[in-house]
């Protein structure tokens, strides 16, 4: 299964390379349009970076096949951020100063994004990220940054409503030490209190431990009726295993990026049974979501793949709209294609056609409507809730 995947990726890479060397069609002579991708390929984020990268490259490949943008082929320049702010800053400088990319897509860790963002805005390069820390969009980025991940308030509020709708009153939050840890807990608590419940305990743990038994015991002492696990994949797996061993059969909610199908496949099905998760999403029957799944050849994509799909599409459409590939053009035009009263489009190809036909468009993405506030946060989105049954994610509801 995994081997097959790798082979597919290799083929895809080879195909992209082949497209690159062929002197084809309209963009035969034009300089390729370089897009920077800075995502974790090694280090703690290494589990998520490659998935996002693949989703972005799939979109760009599709666009290239359809003739590129502004008559130019899109060429991605990929650098590894090593999940380390110092290394990421060096990589970003290379992308900006050597490759002259107008946009950098894909930073993951909040500290990496916060470190790279000043380099970007100072050199007028646009940045799209998945980092969830609330402080990211509060940086003085002058508009050179958008993030498709809902901030912790949007997320926690929706998750909280979902948890409350299950009839849970006493929620224990067990989360990794990260910028989103405290705000998430506070927003959850506020919402639950309004519904007659509360967060009864909040345990923050350290990453990279081989067991979290005592953390679980500590949370259980507050006698909760529901567990909200706020961590990344490696530590969430340890938590789920320890919960199973301890025979704790409470309802559990995990972040969608912590339990994508690939992660669930690493556990015996009884361990993940009943885990619930939610991710920012488009409508149920959204063609954006479905076409992203089809493009990647999977049944359900996770939140990161959906967002990566949207970054690539937004980049292409904004450049087409602005008729110029620069950071400033991206900054000034991204909202002209992502929101407003234009014709709704659900993927880059349709959007390009509509722009070519002179229409106003409003891109509706795989991760949601992709409408951005002035500071670069998404203004709202639906959440797709899923539940694990027999080791597989099954759709529950859309809120």
């Amino acid at each position: 299964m995994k081997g097959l995947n790798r082979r597919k990726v290799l083929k895809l890479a080879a195909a992209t390379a082949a497209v690159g060397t062929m002197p084809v069609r309209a963009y035969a002579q034009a300089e390729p349009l370089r897009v920077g991708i800075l995502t974790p390929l090694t280090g703690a984020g290494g589990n998520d970076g490659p998935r996002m990268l693949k989703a972005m490259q799939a979109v760009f490949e599709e666009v290239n096949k359809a003739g590129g943008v502004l008559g130019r082929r899109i060429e991605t320049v990929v650098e590894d951020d090593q999940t380390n702010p110092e290394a990421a800053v060096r990589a970003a400088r290379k992308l900006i100063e050597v490759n002259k990319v107008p946009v950098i897509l894909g930073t993951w860790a909040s500290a990496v994004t916060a470190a790279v963002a000043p380099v970007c805005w100072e050199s007028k390069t646009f940045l799209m990220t998945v980092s969830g820390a609330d402080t990211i969009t509060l940086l003085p980025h002058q508009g050179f940054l958008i993030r498709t991940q809902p901030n912790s308030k949007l997320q926690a509020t929706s998750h909280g409503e979902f948890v409350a709708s299950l009839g849970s009153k006493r929620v224990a939050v067990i989360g990794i030490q990260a910028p989103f840890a405290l705000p998430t807990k506070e927003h959850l608590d506020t919402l639950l209190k309004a519904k007659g419940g509360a967060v009864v305990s909040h345990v923050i743990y350290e990453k990279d431990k081989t067991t979290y038994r005592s953390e679980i015991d500590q949370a259980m002492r507050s006698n909760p009726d529901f567990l909200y696990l706020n961590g990344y994949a490696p530590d969430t797996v340890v938590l789920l295993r320890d919960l199973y061993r301890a025979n704790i059969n409470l309802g559990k909610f995990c972040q969608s990026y912590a339990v994508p199908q690939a992660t669930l496949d690493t556990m015996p099905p009884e361990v993940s049974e009943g885990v619930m998760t939610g991710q920012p999403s488009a409508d149920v029957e959204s063609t954006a979501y479905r076409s992203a799944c089809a493009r990647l050849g999977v049944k359900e994509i996770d939140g990161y793949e959906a967002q990566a799909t949207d970054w690539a599409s937004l980049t292409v459409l904004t450049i087409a709209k602005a008729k110029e590939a620069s950071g400033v053009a991206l900054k000034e035009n991204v909202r002209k294609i992502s929101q407003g009263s234009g014709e709704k489009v659900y993927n880059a190809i349709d959007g390009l056609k509509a722009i070519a036909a002179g229409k106003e468009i409003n891109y509706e993405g795989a991760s949601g409507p992709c409408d951005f506030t002035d500071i670069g946060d998404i203004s709202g989105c639906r959440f797709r809730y899923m539940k694990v049954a027999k080791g597989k994610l099954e759709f529950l509801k859309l809120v």
Partner: protein
Amino acid sequence: MEVLQLILNGLMAGTVLAVPAIGLTAIFAVLRFTNFALASHMTIGAFAGFIANTTFGLPIVPALAAAFVVAGIIGWMSDEFVLRPLRASGFVTTAIGSIALTIALENFVRFGFGNQMRGYDLPLRRDWVISGLRVSPQQFENLLIAIVVVAMLFAFLSMTRTGKAMRAVADNPMLASIKGINSDMVARLVSFIAMGLAGLGGMLSGLDTTIDPLVGFRTILSVFAAAVVGGLGSIPGAVVGALVIGVGEELSLLVLTPAYRTAVGFIAILLVLTFRPRGILGQRAY
């Protein structure tokens, strides 16, 4: 009751560290440097066990054996071709060189297998509950494995010719060479056994967590700490050190938040070393 459970949890966490810590300390006893390449050999062992288990359908014990053998062979080769030539330039150069080596090996694994997480095809068992205290069967077995490993090492070191030769080299390399003990052979053997143990430890750790190229990296600091606390070069010390680190981190939860666990571990190390600058059992190699 809470305290008892914390101590139990600490012992169980410690057993995962014990086996690789024995490997680290064994290399130190004979070759006199801290071999940080242990981290990547843990990862290699975890992956070797994964292939044995999922591709060849082997149950846990043969898979553990595969983890031991594969990591051991790679450990022997990497010492022979990469670290041995560095030893002439001093122990510190070798230790730092071993960090570069571990980065290279970790990335060989990444190159071949990618970053995605994997899991063994082994069932997970519920805890045993004994008069209100929970014990995990898996971790109980880990403890047994650690005990068996120590017992076998002891038997090997004290009863076999080769074992006695290794002890001689550990005690006094100069004298050993005068007596005609082939220290190169001993170095190969200790690298094989120690890195094999690292591989075993990697797979044990992978049973509790996930298997990816970072298996060893995640635990190497704790393993190093365990070996130092126990006394570098002392095999029982490594086991004691691992349990001290495990229990110390857990007991800290009585007064501090779990987010400070590692920091407490280091403070425990500082305390131990203040009173015993060479670790708890740092007086003897065996």
